[in-house]
């Protein structure tokens, strides 16, 4: 079984994010980067499926990202993935879902696939679009925000659960399929030290757009980020005090009506 896991390099969730002066992105200096959290669940689920299927099953990591993303790819290989395709081209500067999906679609088709796992969204821009666009481009079904995954005995169907308002939805799907992973699906393993050593010898196929026969991906752009803006500072907080609760509530209502004009 050919298992693909998609991976994005993203700032650590604990990092403090500041917008750069030009408003074109974030200040990367001093920020630690990691595998986007939900993509870690995707890698783990891919590895579990491989272990279950055995035989010549293989997990291939596919990543669109800058040169620095090699470290995150290598981490996934250290967790146990078999090889990787890294699409790295200065022409892909911005994180634009259509470009990313188009590039991924080509790379995945070239590699061949039975199932694709990815995070339900990246933890940096939170767009959550690539998996759906990619599903359309590959003309395969998609199941999003999966919290459990079970492959059938025959290996051509999967049963999943996805968290929805008030409960779980149980879904059956044919393979090939793309599945986006939610927290709770699994507990990602650590990159063990033997794994880290083995990862050194695993192949990362670095490709430019030209290698994918995509001289110019600009035509794929459907949206453009105009400017990055910092979150506006919150207004002043006012504590309403009074002799007792009924008096305080009256004062609060007055303020809401007269000052905030919210009522």
């Amino acid at each position: 079984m050919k298992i693909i896991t998609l991976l994005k390099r993203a700032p650590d969730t604990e990092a403090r994010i500041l917008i750069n002066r030009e408003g074109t992105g974030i200040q990367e200096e001093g920020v630690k980067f990691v595998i986007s959290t939900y993509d870690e669940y995707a890698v783990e689920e891919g590895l579990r499926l491989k272990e279950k299927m055995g035989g010549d099953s293989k997990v291939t990591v596919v990543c669109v990202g800058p040169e620095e993303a090699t470290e995150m790819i290598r981490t996934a290989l250290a967790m146990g993935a078999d090889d990787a395709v890294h699409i790295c081209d200065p022409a892909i500067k911005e994180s634009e879902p259509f470009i990313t999906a188009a590039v991924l679609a080509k790379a995945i088709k070239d590699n061949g696939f039975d199932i694709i796992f990815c995070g339900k969204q990246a933890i940096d821009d939170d767009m959550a679009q690539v998996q759906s666009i990619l599903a359309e481009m590959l003309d395969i079904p998609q199941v999003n925000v999966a919290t459990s995954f079970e492959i059938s005995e025959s290996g051509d169907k999967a049963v999943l659960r996805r968290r929805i308002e008030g409960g779980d939805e149980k879904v059956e799907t044919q393979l090939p399929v793309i599945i986006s992973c939610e927290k709770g699906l699994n507990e990602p393993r650590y990159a063990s030290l033997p794994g880290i050593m083995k990862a050194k010898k695993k192949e990362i196929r670095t490709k430019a757009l030209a290698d994918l026969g995509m001289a110019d991906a600009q035509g794929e752009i459907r949206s453009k980020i105009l400017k990055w803006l910092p979150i506006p500072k919150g207004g002043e907080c006012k504590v309403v005090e009074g002799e007792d609760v009924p008096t305080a509530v009256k004062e609060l209502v007055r303020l809401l009506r007269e000052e905030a004009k919210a009522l």
Partner: protein
Amino acid sequence: MQFELTEEERMIQKTARDFANKDLAPVAAESNKTGEFPEAIFKKLGELGFMGMTVPEEYGGVNLGTFCLVLALEELGRVCASTAVAVSVHNSLVNWVILKHGSEELRKRYLPDLATAEIIGAYAVTEPEAGSDVAALRLSSVRDGDEYRLDGTKIFISTGDKAGINIVFGRTDPKDRKGGISAFVVENAFPGFSIGKTEEKMGLTASTTVELVFEDCRVPAGNILGGEGDGMRIALGALDGGRIGIAALSVGIAQAALDEAVLFAREREQFGTRIIDFQSTQWKIAEMAMQIEAARLLVYRAAKLRDASTPCPKEAAMAKLLATRVANQAAFDALQIHGGVGYTKEFLVERLFRDARAGEIYEGTSEIQRLVISRRVIEEYERMFPTE
């Protein structure tokens, strides 16, 4: 001179850090309170490769060397010094001496189990009358046919009771003070071996410290490391690694103290302002950060020398002396910044303060480190400018 970690080193550090934060931290809080030894943690450390870091792959290790070991020990020490001590002793003393001085048979028999934490290794030198003065040790070790017969006691042995094997230094020649010492691999299951008193310690409470009792304990002659009389040489050869390990985990304690101090000072308000805005707090933070960085670089350098097989007693002693002092000072200052609550068990700094204290005592006291450093420095001058 290279100050950046390689990609591989960063990955190893990240695995150690993630493991320390996610798996070890919750267990450590509990274990340090109850004194319960966290055995499951060692199993996991074994699975991840942290228990065979300097052991070659042919014996089941990952052979990453001392530098990667110190990266891991700092991360573990930051979260649980007790655990880090056991990992340090296991890797830099027990695995090391078996690899360097054990027969092929001993290596094959013990290293694969040690490297995967099937068994934990402990290291027994100290006796009631032999602390810093190692050559004063008396544990009787008499050859008797195909065996050695061990009689006597060892004290203050870290995890000696949880271990599968202890490296035991005994006296094979009563007349030769330094040349009459030999080292043995003693399985805890050997007849005549038993655990005596368990110490009630001030700190490092998640790790046990015990007395080992040898009463007509029978050790196969093949379990000797090197040959008869090689004990002192073996102990001295392992010293540097042991000291670098303690230094590394002490940097971790110091880092934890700084982390706790800054996070607390940001929240705590007095006189209508956050205490981090007071200069007295800021100066402490600056001092801590600088000292930690200096200690870390000394540890890194000593570890790099060790990996290059360059003798480094002076550098290892410097790293240990500075790092353990920095850990104590940082824990002291962090507790001071916390004020009253820092003196309660509810806050981590209280444990850091107690755990840091041991650093200036075990694996060679600070006084011994100064002795090692000064002797080397004076020797260097003697070579450059010989006395007439």
